[in-house]
């Protein structure tokens, strides 16, 4: 695959504070790469260095094979969609969108045709004469995107572009952005702290923490095979446990709440936590991930979707990793219940997701187990 952006040992320090220690990353042509991390992890600084608003303290940046480390932003063949849109208030939608072409002195006829294309693509044709202040947040975001893509950049940088929008609008714009990226074939570099957004849109995700990449991979790899504790807990919800005995004593592993199986202590067949097979998790590839299930209250802590169907409990052979526990709390999240179980004789509280109506009560004694292959060993 062709490399579009190459960051080679890039470093950034502000005064004595090291924001980005030596950082290398290759971004492929035409891919949708997300820099995901908590606020202050350096993802925005990294993007501003790619855009040219900050100069790296050390290292080199290449765009399509050309060294651009010291090239000013107005000479880089990439465009940015800003977090708060940064539209020009004294210009209408048309003039905002045409600004880039005017600066590059593109002939007027070509300006008009490209304007029409972009207005249609972003569904802004009816708003062409409005001023930014007369537009809603979602419409302003569309103008910001139109203003960037009309320049046919090699790379589109998006700095938390949906952060200021409400939940429903964010969902629909996520899809629009993803489709736009597929249709245009432009390399997208997307910055967000929203792991669900990152999951649903990206080809690859770079999970960042303290200026470093904790893990780089596809959404599936990140979700199912987190390399370390940070990734395991930052992306989706996870139970982090430590093996107390046996050969693997002291080993830390993660087990997703939807993989935890609870059963009443009375000896009935264990209830499975995953989704019933009727609503299978193929929602990943469907165009409307949010419509298949009622939205949850807290997207930040909820895995966006179960990524693999799991074994039906009836054929489950007796398995190890059995524990006894007491249900401490049950919380309702629309499409699922979160059940918090305190393991007997331990400090740990394990969370289990239950997608059908739970037959449990707080205070109830349960057995708790999971399949060993669902454990993810953390390093």
């Amino acid at each position: 695959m062709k490399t579009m952006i190459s960051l080679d040992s890039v470093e950034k320090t502000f005064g004595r504070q090291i924001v980005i220690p030596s950082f290398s990353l290759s971004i492929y042509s035409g891919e949708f790469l997300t820099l995901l991390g908590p606020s202050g992890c350096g993802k925005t600084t990294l993007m501003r260095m790619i855009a040219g608003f900050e100069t790296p303290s050390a290292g080199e940046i290449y765009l399509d094979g050309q060294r651009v480390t010291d090239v000013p932003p107005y000479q880089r063949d990439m465009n940015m969609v800003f977090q708060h849109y940064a539209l020009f208030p004294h210009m209408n939608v048309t003039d905002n969108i045409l600004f880039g072409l005017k600066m590059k002195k593109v002939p007027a006829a070509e300006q008009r045709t490209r304007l029409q294309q972009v207005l249609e693509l972003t569904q802004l044709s009816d708003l062409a004469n409005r001023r930014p202040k007369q537009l809603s947040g979602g419409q302003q975001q569309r103008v910001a995107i139109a203003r960037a893509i009309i320049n046919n950049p090699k790379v589109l940088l998006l700095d938390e572009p949906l952060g200021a929008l409400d939940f429903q609008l964010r969902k629909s714009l996520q899809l629009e952005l993803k489709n736009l990226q597929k249709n245009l074939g432009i390399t997208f570099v997307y910055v967000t702290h929203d792991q669900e957004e990152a999951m649903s849109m990206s080809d690859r995700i770079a999970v960042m923490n303290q200026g470093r990449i904790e893990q780089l991979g596809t959404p599936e790899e990140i979700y199912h095979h987190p390399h370390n504790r940070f990734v395991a807990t930052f992306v989706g919800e996870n139970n982090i446990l430590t093996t107390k005995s046996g050969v693997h004593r002291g080993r830390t592993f993660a087990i997703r709440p939807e993989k935890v199986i609870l059963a009443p202590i009375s000896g009935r067949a264990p209830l499975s936590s995953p989704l019933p097979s009727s609503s299978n998790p193929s929602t990943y590839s469907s165009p409307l991930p949010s419509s298949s299930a009622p939205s949850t209250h807290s997207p930040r802590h909820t895995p966006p979707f179960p990524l693999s169907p799991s074994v039906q409990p009836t054929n489950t052979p007796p398995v190890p990793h059995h524990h006894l526990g007491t249900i401490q709390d049950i919380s309702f999240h629309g499409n699922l219940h979160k059940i918090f179980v305190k393991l007997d004789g331990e400090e740990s509280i394990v969370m289990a997701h239950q997608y059908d109506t739970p037959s449990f009560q707080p205070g109830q004694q349960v057995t708790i187990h999971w399949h060993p292959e669902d454990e993810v060993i953390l390093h």
Partner: protein
Amino acid sequence: MNNKGKYLAYPSLIWLTLFFLFPLMIIVLLSFFQRGLYGDIIYEWTLANYARFFEPLYLHIFFDTIIISVLTTCCCLILGYPLSYMISRMSSSWQNIWLLLVMIPFWINFLVRSYAWVIILRSQGLLNTLLLQLGLIDQPLSLLYNPTAVLIGLVYTLLPFMVLPIYVSLEQLDRRKLEAAYDLGATPSRAFWHITVPLTLPGIVTGSILVFVGTIGMFVVPEIMGGAKSSMLGNVIQNQFLSARDWPFGSTLSIMVILFSLILIYLYNRAVQAQQDERG
């Protein structure tokens, strides 16, 4: 607002009514009366004072005053904008120091400051002495008592009124808009003309109005630095009240200055309003 809150405004309202509105009404009334033989006032209605304003002598002074006001405004803008821009780019501690430097002249008596310029510019003054000592000139330059000297004095006096409003609007300018312009291919100079100037226009207009209106009514600077030859409308008004003892005509001239300023302020408000409507 709380209903009781309005009582707080009463002291200043009473003050303004007694010492501003009331005298202003007297001036308006006076402008319609006649001057008596010995500078007294004959209380008979007349429009003769207004007719006299349109005599060539006074129209000439009026237009001269407008020209020098326009020149002063332009000079203040050309000098003031870069200064404001520089200050707005500094770190906040340096900004405070520079804003202080801009405002310090306000603390010093206006007359003293004007005479300081006389000391600098007169034929045996600092500047001429320096140039003579350096051998750059043989004869002292006549830098004082001409229109240029008046312009220098006016620009010096009114520059802070240009710098401060522009500084405020530059401070409010969202830097991300500039970054967006750079990102879209605008060089720094094109971003300045396409983004910075239009977005700081309110500051430019406010500063220009303040300087222009301030210049039109000015009489101290032309009096001290302009000598006998150059006189502006403010000097004529001063003369009518003090030397000629023609209070009715002095009042008429004052009313004309006020009217002209009000028209300008009205036009300014309308322009700003239209701009805000455009922006939604």
